[in-house]
């Protein structure tokens, strides 16, 4: 088995708790946020999700 070295491991210094510093994590652009709500885009994503689930189901049975 393998494991990755965590990227977000630094604890924030300005905090009373050992909260991980996420300031380097990417934020979605306005276009990405729009796509997440766009009905045509999401209809396509819904179909893709269901096809993916179907594939998972088929791959699990032997």
């Amino acid at each position, binding site marked *: *088995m*393998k*494991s*990755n070295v*965590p*990227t*977000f*491991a630094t604890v924030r210094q300005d*905090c009373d*708790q*050992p*909260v*991980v510093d*996420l*300031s380097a*994590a*990417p*934020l*979605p652009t306005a276009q990405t946020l729009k*796509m*997440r*709500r766009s*009905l045509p*885009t*999401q*209809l*396509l*994503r*819904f179909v893709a*999700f*269901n096809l*993916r*689930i*179907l*594939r*998972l*189901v088929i*791959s*699990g*049975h*032997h």
Partner: protein
Amino acid sequence: MADVVVLGAGVSGHTAALHLTRLLGKGDTITVVSPNASWNWIPSNIWVGVGRMTKESVVFPLAPVYKRKGIRFLQAKAVAIRPEGDLDDPRGAVDIVHTSSESRGTEQRIRFDYLINATGPQLKFGATEGLGPDGGHSVSVCTADHAVEAARALDRSIDIMRSGRPQTLVVGMGHGTCTCEGAAFEYVFNVDHTLREAGVRDLARLIYLTNEASLGDFGVGGMTFEDGGFQTTSELWTASLFRERNVEPILGAHVERVEPGVVSFETLDGTHHRLPFDFAMLLPPFGGVPLKAFDRSGTDITDTMFAPSGFMKVDADYSAKDFDDWTASDWPEAYLAPGYSNIFAVGIAFAPPHQISRPLKSVNGTIITPSPPRTGMPSGIMGKTAALTIADRIKHGPSRKAHTASMARMGAACVASVGSGLRNGSAASMTMVPVVPDYSRFATGRDLKGTKGEVGLSGHWAKLMLHYLFIYKAKARFGWHLIPE
């Protein structure tokens, strides 16, 4: 003519029992033993836990379904398995204690030709002092009743914030060895959304307290996704979501104690912390339900059949090995108890050979490692697989080859869905295949075509669809068996 006994009526046991009704002949009997009178679609407890759904939307009584399908239902808990029977009868037997109001405490021994142990988890709130809603100081969403209580507590916090007072809300894992990090992830996502809808998000500090050593681990060692022509990780994906929603993560934490308004925990670096809170939803660690095992002469063989965790041993490789030597082939295929061709353990009831995430200890020696998840879709598939094997063996003889469904081949989905209606929701959806990484088949351990994380409204539709489909299926309505596990 054979008698099949299924212990447990959760996703795994219920799926197995329903499939057996269509696979077995008229002379065969199916008996389900469950201490609970109702079936609960547990993934939707998350929505109950934020007040978006009622308890009645996620549970239904089992007895009418079983009556319609010709299944004998005993509301009871199993206390002992006798795989070789007793001195009176060499057929296998299970000792049960009834739990219904009419016959509570009555003991009974029932015989079986085939047995499926699908008893699910024992919720071990007692592993952490002060954890849980029953006598403790935190809430949970593990059962529908717990989720109702969690929603009430969340409402109280929201009311306080509406009066202008800030609140600290903690969501996560109540012990260093917990599993189901995906459920806590879903819940924190829902709490954030509920706070925004209530217009009080700016007064809430939302902390995700987890035993995962890295964000996006989810007890499966994290995932690699392919996105926009690059490989990225579930860690980056989760970090982005948390930053966007201002959720503060605390990683590698073992909760030591929950007192009124304060949770004490140790982190992997060995330091101890006290976190004051106003609302805390902390999941408990899971153990196997207390089941003993005896051979025909009455000698206790519990240690042979069960792992120390209380989960039943099956056809997995339980030999002690280093993390680097663990492979996908260590995981069970047929879920058969060693030495028996007629006893299966599926869903949470089987003992995993080892963790999927790298096992870690704090510098003080405290184990802080997620246990492997095996709920939801994998549980259903295992239940169906055991049912297929049993049906084949009843029809064609006990040496018939077993059907297989290794977690190193099957996939799983986790959808954290928020909002109501078809236009206003959103979701963070993950799929992975296989659940247990197989580095002999895939460079990243998993098939990149089936392993994805995405955020958007479509995930919300998918979660709603799964809610209604699975409850329809569990009620064994027309065409139920066409709905995949």
